[in-house]
């Protein structure tokens, strides 16, 4: 066994994203199916409209959350596998030199699909556990109660199929990534060094250049940083606004999902950045760069993406709530007007700034503990 179960534990990020996606999809889709029990039972015009709107909401929510999070999970999985292969290129080179085929090595990556299975299975279970609460929250006053039923097709579609597909993706991508010359792997390189012709030379200081180059060498992290801030910005504001619009429980649920997703993705991105740059930072430290300069040189390039993610998140939640309130629930009388929630924005923005500085502080502390000599001994 080349890859141990322990390696797949590092994919908590993927597991958490899958959990959130399946969790939301489970109760939303199951509500979507079960609410149709009411079909034909509702006589009141207003109630029928509300019923239609709820059906549409459940569908939209499930598709949006499921779709967005599935894309994130796939990207994350690629990202992890790439990092894993890069970090173990020498070992894979040696294994290949011993005579193992790419195919055989790639198949061992099935274990990465396992983390998806865990996330989906947990999300499914917890989603069903929460379903009665959601049904209650969404219950139409005066309408008959809706019972929570178990749907096998949801189990297949939300747990079995994703686990299977993700396992295939993991093995397939690993196979693709391992297809580079043996000697190159043995030397610890997976990708060819691109000989990009240099553009008109901008005169940048070393620290700025280091920011840009770190960013360029880990572009996918920019995506995750933006996503984390997107989650934070959108779900936090949506959660806070929900309190007035729909039920408190829904609001808190969205808030918590947003915070969890943001925290996990951000934590993953930052740790990847730290670990990938240990050696560079220790050289800078040895030279006499301060901790703050070291932190800036690695994290600085990602700040614009963080802000961008946050802004898109703000716009996104505003747009989504607008659509919900003004289109889906337009004809339903009791839903209040929705305008941009300014207090929620400022609360979220303040928390965003605070979190940003906490992450920086955490990073500086981590750099402080890097022993220059130890990193240099590892050779």
């Amino acid at each position, binding site marked *: 066994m080349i890859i141990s179960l322990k390696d797949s534990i590092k994919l908590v990020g993927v597991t958490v994203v899958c959990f959130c996606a399946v969790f939301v999809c489970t109760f939303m889709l199951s509500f979507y199916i079960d609410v149709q029990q009411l079909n034909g039972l509702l006589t009141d015009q207003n109630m029928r409209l509300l019923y239609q709107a709820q059906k549409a909401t459940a569908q939209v929510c499930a598709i949006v959350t499921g779709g967005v999070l599935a894309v994130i999970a796939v990207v994350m999985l690629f990202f992890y596998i790439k990092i894993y292969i890069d970090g173990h290129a020498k070992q894979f080179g040696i294994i290949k030199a011993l005579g193992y085929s790419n195919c055989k090595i790639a198949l061992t990556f099935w274990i990465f699909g396992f983390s998806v299975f865990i996330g989906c299975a947990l999300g499914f279970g917890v989603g069903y556990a929460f379903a009665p609460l959601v049904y209650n929250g969404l219950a139409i006053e005066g309408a008959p109660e809706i019972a929570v039923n178990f749907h096998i097709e949801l189990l297949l579609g939300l747990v079995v199929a994703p686990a299977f597909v993700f396992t295939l993706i993991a093995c397939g991508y690993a196979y693709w990534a391992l297809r580079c010359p043996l000697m190159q792997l043995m030397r610890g*390189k997976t990708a060819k*060094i691109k000989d990009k012709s*240099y553009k008109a030379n901008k005169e940048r*200081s*070393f*620290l700025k*250049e*280091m920011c840009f*180059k*770190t960013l*360029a*060498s880990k572009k996918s992290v920019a995506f995750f940083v933006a996503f984390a801030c997107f989650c934070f910005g959108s779900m936090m504001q949506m959660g806070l606004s929900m309190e007035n619009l729909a039920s408190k429980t829904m609001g808190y649920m969205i808030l918590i999902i947003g915070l969890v997703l943001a925290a996990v993705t951000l934590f993953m991105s930052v740790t990847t950045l730290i670990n990938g740059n240990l*050696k*560079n930072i220790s*050289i*800078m*430290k*040895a*030279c*006499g*760069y*301060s*901790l703050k300069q070291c932190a800036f040189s690695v994290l600085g390039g990602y700040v614009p993406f963080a802000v961008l993610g946050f802004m898109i998140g703000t716009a996104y939640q505003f747009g989504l709530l607008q659509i919900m309130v003004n289109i889906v629930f337009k004809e339903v009388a009791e839903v209040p007007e929705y305008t941009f929630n300014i207090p929620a924005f400022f609360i979220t923005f303040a928390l965003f700034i605070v979190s940003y500085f906490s992450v920086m502080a955490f990073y500086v502390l981590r750099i*402080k503990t890097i*022993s*220059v*000599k130890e990193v*240099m001994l590892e*050779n």
Partner: protein
Amino acid sequence: MLKAENVVKSYNGSEVLKGVSLEVQNGEFVVILGASGSGKSTLLSVLSGLERADSGNVEYNGESLSQMNDKQLTEFRKREVGFIFQQYYLLSHMTVESNVRMGADLAGNKNFREIISSVGLGDKLKSKPSQLSGGEQQRVCIARALAKNPNILFLDEPTGALDEKTGREVLDYISRLQSERKFTMIMVTHNSNIADMAQTVIKMNSGNIVETYKNTERKNAYAIGW
């Protein structure tokens, strides 16, 4: 003057430096000689402020490194110290120019391109370290260290990864530079021939200094054995 008094350093309970004392005058070229594992690199990292001694004292021009906090130690390395390591430790994702700039920017040094040319890499400014030979990479390290205008240069087996011809070239370049600019230079090696180039030789054995002597003449890099 760099002075160490009774320096002790342990890792996981085993003493790697067992009470080392030495004195190096400003502008002196010292070679620390010893077998692999005798504690040379550890001594170098303590002398240069990369690490703290467990006990004992290290003093540089009257300032005690042991009493400095982390910030002051960083400032000390920034102001005074240059490093050259056996494994180069270049930033692999950055160009030769940026790597040298890393040292130059700290000293506000604008003529880093001249320094790169002076180590013979003027046409490799935009190359990445992985596109260079071992000798060339080591010359980038020299340029990076010199770009800081250090007052004291530490070298840990700078020729350990190089073949004889390239090794001699690198040593020749460094020692000529040291005679010209008169910075203090402390070089660690396990190759006893290299010791003939130094003014002072300090021999180490299992964490102790066992002998210190001065050479009557400094041989150049092409006159020593290998």
